[in-house]
């Protein structure tokens, strides 16, 4: 039986969903793509696509939107034929709430993060910045927990090496 498609949630509902998930989805896309404008476009397109395919966006599980953003980002990277962070689109990192912005340290960590392959950058973001468990990251990425854990360890090693190379 074909599914009846309603026009979607009211704008205020959509606004609430955006306020809850939008910024995190944008940050996720920006870390994967390394490009602020492309991240903005991806999040916009994912929200609008979700509106067209779901009857009640507020009830959509968060994982659906995160997987959609992830898939869109990787598809975009595939079209680009290169994974590296584009850089040059402004500061990727900013001081967290309640933390002092030590500019030199921030720029070094930012450069180290940008030096990583996308898959490693993604797991560092989800684990260190969003506080996700390895199980959650594995489910989102469609990989095993062991692979995700190993990828995270490799990412930290690579970042350390990068930072040591700066000295």
């Amino acid at each position: 039986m074909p599914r009846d498609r309603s026009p979607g949630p009211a704008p205020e509902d959509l606004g609430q969903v955006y306020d809850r998930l939008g910024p995190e989805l944008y940050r996720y896309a920006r870390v994967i793509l390394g490009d602020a404008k492309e991240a903005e476009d991806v999040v916009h397109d994912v929200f609008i696509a979700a509106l067209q395919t779901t009857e009640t966006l507020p009830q959509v599980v968060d994982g659906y939107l995160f997987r959609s953003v992830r898939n869109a980002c990787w598809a975009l990277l595939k079209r680009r034929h290169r994974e590296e962070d584009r850089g040059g689109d402004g500061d990727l990192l900013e001081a967290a709430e309640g933390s002092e912005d030590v500019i030199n340290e921030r720029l070094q960590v930012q450069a180290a993060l940008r030096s990583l392959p996308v898959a490693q950058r993604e797991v560092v973001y989800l684990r260190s910045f969003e506080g996700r468990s390895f199980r959650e990251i594995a489910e989102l990425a469609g990989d095993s927990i062991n692979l995700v854990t190993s990828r995270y360890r490799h990412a930290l090693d690579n970042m350390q090496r990068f930072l040591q190379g700066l000295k």
Partner: protein
Amino acid sequence: MTGDDLEQALKRYRVAGPPARLRSRILESATPKRERSLPVWIAVSSLAASILLLIGGASSVYGKVGRSASDESERTRREQIASTAAVLGGSSLGLEEATAAVQAAESDATGALARPEARIQ
């Protein structure tokens, strides 16, 4: 910097958030899709209004035509009575006789129309 130091350093920062325009951009893009159903309502309302106007107009015209036909037959009837009364002398008695004669003629005509054979003839 050790691995632990690096993890602590990462916790002091966060990835820069979206520009404020992204929220309004998404809401603006979503709004036209929600309003796609609006022309349907406008069309339905217009159709209903048109039907009501049509029915009202037809009813009004029907009433006018009916009244016009009725006025015409009444005028014809009065003229018949007046001409018959004139033939009968123009007195009040003549007027009564003329009225009765016209009514009798109308009854005959109505009776003839009610009979199929009369319509055939």
